[in-house]
């Protein structure tokens, strides 16, 4: 009991203890804020990628695509673990906005909007047709025209607050889309003739996925039109990918394994068919693997950030070590007194370990509370700084990030708190051990006072 009482008294009645306590709180505060923002950015980025892709993708990187997709989609639709499937055409094209000489290189994606919305978050990225995705390619101003959905950053710019200036309705604008159709063997389908397929579409909506690269370079086209443009229509129609969404209770890894098995069997069955060769390059990937090239750098940044905070942790250990060393140097008389009344060396270690634990616990509680409060008000603070001093953490006209992520993750907080406590215990370890080794006669001698 005396250990608890003394640990509390040492903590609250020594100014130097307050300094150590504040050092712990400050470190925890910094780690909470930066980790929350960083984790928020990574999580948000992953969610957007997941929403863009669906759960699983069967596809090939080749622009030629693969055939017999309709047969396989029927198999997938019969599977009890699959909620939806969407065939997708992917290629590159040049677009020329009506009335301009300008040509822009873009990626095109041919989709069936309703199916694709069942599998991905496509429907939620629309502005004008969000409530009726089936009309995504029907321009409001003339539903009979062939519409296209344009990545928002191709069409609109962000203001300083990160807002897009949408009109009440989409302006009637044509887009001429030209692309090179390919044969099943990868040759230019129209070699020697016009080379390119060109068709005019009309701007029907914008898509705001929140992924900068997607929003600044992707144009969605109606599936059949895109298939025709890319030379994938005909008797053995081809697609580049099939996006899949699993039922809610199906795990990602498990679902992908099942799809891979189905695909393996299907490819074997189709082995003797004319265009079976195209099936060989098809892979089954989870959304994480499919978007690995984009997600990995952010995860790497997060890992580097964690590594940097390990260094902050080392600094904290050193601060705690110094503070404890000083406290214990001042408390050597107390240690002598305690030993003279029968307190063991182990109890001395426990006393100072308790002191360190309290410092870690209370310091991290204060740091967590301050961090949580700061995160709660962070966007408001940033807005205020922008209004008064034109300061922004990042330029909203350029970056596709709106608010600063500030959703506190309980797991992260618990991890930080435990780390802070362990850090304090580690910092106090050597001084406590030294204290325990002190001989009472050495500390109680008149010459030592």
């Amino acid at each position, binding site marked *: *009991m005396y250990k608890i009482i003394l640990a509390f008294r040492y903590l609250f009645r020594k100014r130097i203890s307050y300094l150590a306590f504040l050092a712990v709180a400050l470190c925890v505060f910094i780690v909470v804020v930066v980790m929350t923002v960083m984790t928020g950015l990574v999580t948000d980025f992953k969610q957007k990628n997941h929403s863009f892709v669906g759960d699983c993708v069967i596809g090939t990187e080749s622009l030629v695509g693969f055939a017999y997709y309709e047969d396989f989609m029927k198999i997938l639709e019969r599977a009890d673990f699959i909620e939806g499937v969407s065939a997708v055409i992917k290629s590159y094209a040049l677009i020329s906005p009506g009335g301009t000489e300008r040509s822009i290189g873009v990626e095109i994606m041919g989709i069936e909007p309703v199916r694709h919305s069942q599998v991905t978050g496509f429907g939620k990225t629309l502005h004008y047709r969000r409530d009726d995705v089936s009309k995504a390619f029907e321009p409001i101003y003339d539903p009979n025209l062939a519409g296209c959905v344009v990545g928002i950053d191709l069409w609109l710019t962000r203001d300083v607050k990160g807002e897009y200036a949408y009109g009440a309705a989409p302006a009637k604008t044509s887009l001429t889309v030209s692309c090179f159709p390919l044969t099943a063997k990868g040759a230019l389908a129209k070699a020697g003739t016009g080379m390119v397929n060109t068709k005019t579409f009309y701007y029907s909506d914008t898509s705001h996925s929140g992924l900068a690269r997607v929003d600044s370079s992707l144009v969605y086209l109606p599936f059949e039109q895109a298939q025709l443009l890319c030379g994938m229509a005909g008797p053995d129609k081809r697609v580049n990918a099939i996006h899949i969404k699993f039922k809610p209770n199906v795990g990602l890894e498990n679902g992908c394994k099942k799809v891979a098995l189905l695909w393996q069997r299907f490819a074997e069955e189709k082995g003797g068919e004319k265009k079976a060769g195209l099936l060989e390059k098809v892979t089954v990937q989870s959304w994480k693997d499919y978007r690995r090239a984009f997600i990995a750098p952010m995860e790497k940044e997060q890992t580097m950030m964690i590594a940097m905070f390990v260094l902050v942790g080392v600094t904290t250990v050193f601060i705690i070590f110094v503070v404890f060393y000083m406290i214990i140097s001042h408390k050597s008389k107390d240690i002598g*007194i305690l030993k003279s009344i*029968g307190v063991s060396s182990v109890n001395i270690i426990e006393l100072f370990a308790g002191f360190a634990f309290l410092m870690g616990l209370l310091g991290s509680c204060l740091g967590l509370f301050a961090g949580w409060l700061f995160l709660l008000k962070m966007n408001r603070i940033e807005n205020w700084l922008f209004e008064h001093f034109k300061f922004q953490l990042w330029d909203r006209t350029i970056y596709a990030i709106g608010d600063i992520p500030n959703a506190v993750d309980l797991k992260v907080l618990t991890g930080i708190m435990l780390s802070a406590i362990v850090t304090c215990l580690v910092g106090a370890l050597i001084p406590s051990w030294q204290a325990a080794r002190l001989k009472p006669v050495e500390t109680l001698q008149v010459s030592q006072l």
Partner: protein
Amino acid sequence: MSENDFILRAEGLYKSYRMGAADVSVLKGVDLAVKKGEFIAIVGASGSGKSTLLHILGALDRPDKGVVKFEGRDLSRISYSELNKFRNKMVGFVFQFYHLLDELSVLENVFLPTMAGKSILGWLACRRLAKNRAGELLGQLGLGQRANHKPFQLSGGERQRTAIARALMNEPRLLLADEPTGNLDSATGNGILKVFEELNRAGQTIVMVTHDERIAQRAGRIITLTDGKIM
């Protein structure tokens, strides 16, 4: 006289300290026997080894050679945990500079030895009794009104009486006092000695170290330590 009449026996105690490159012999074969209920004063000049002897008798330090027997038990043969129990229950120390814990109140300082000797549950079970005893001891020593004060709010005499109360808290068989009046004026020191005399009259065995012959005269027996030996 039987062996049972002695509470403490020291035989052939040697102790030396390293000072720089040289070994300084402090005790050079000390033999001492303390009977139950005795009040002994150990006198000697500064550096004669009085405090070292007291620390060895109270198991705060170990001799290089020799044996200390407390009620027939050789202290060099008992384990560390038993040694801690011995310091907690069998002896009470009173130091020249009081050595109270600044963070604790006077009352807390007094019941500290009882608290230190118990687990949390053990302490919770006996805390009322312990606090009552600590209060009674403070009352007997004239510090009833000072129980909730902090040591820095007390005079030197009051601090020393608090230290005596702490030393007596667990009703030790032996009270060891190292220059208990050394830091006090003569009137206050006299008061402390009166406390010791009263305790001794009540049966308490006391070994006191002092360099002052006049103070030593108040004890029942005087042992003079000169150059590491008892004369």
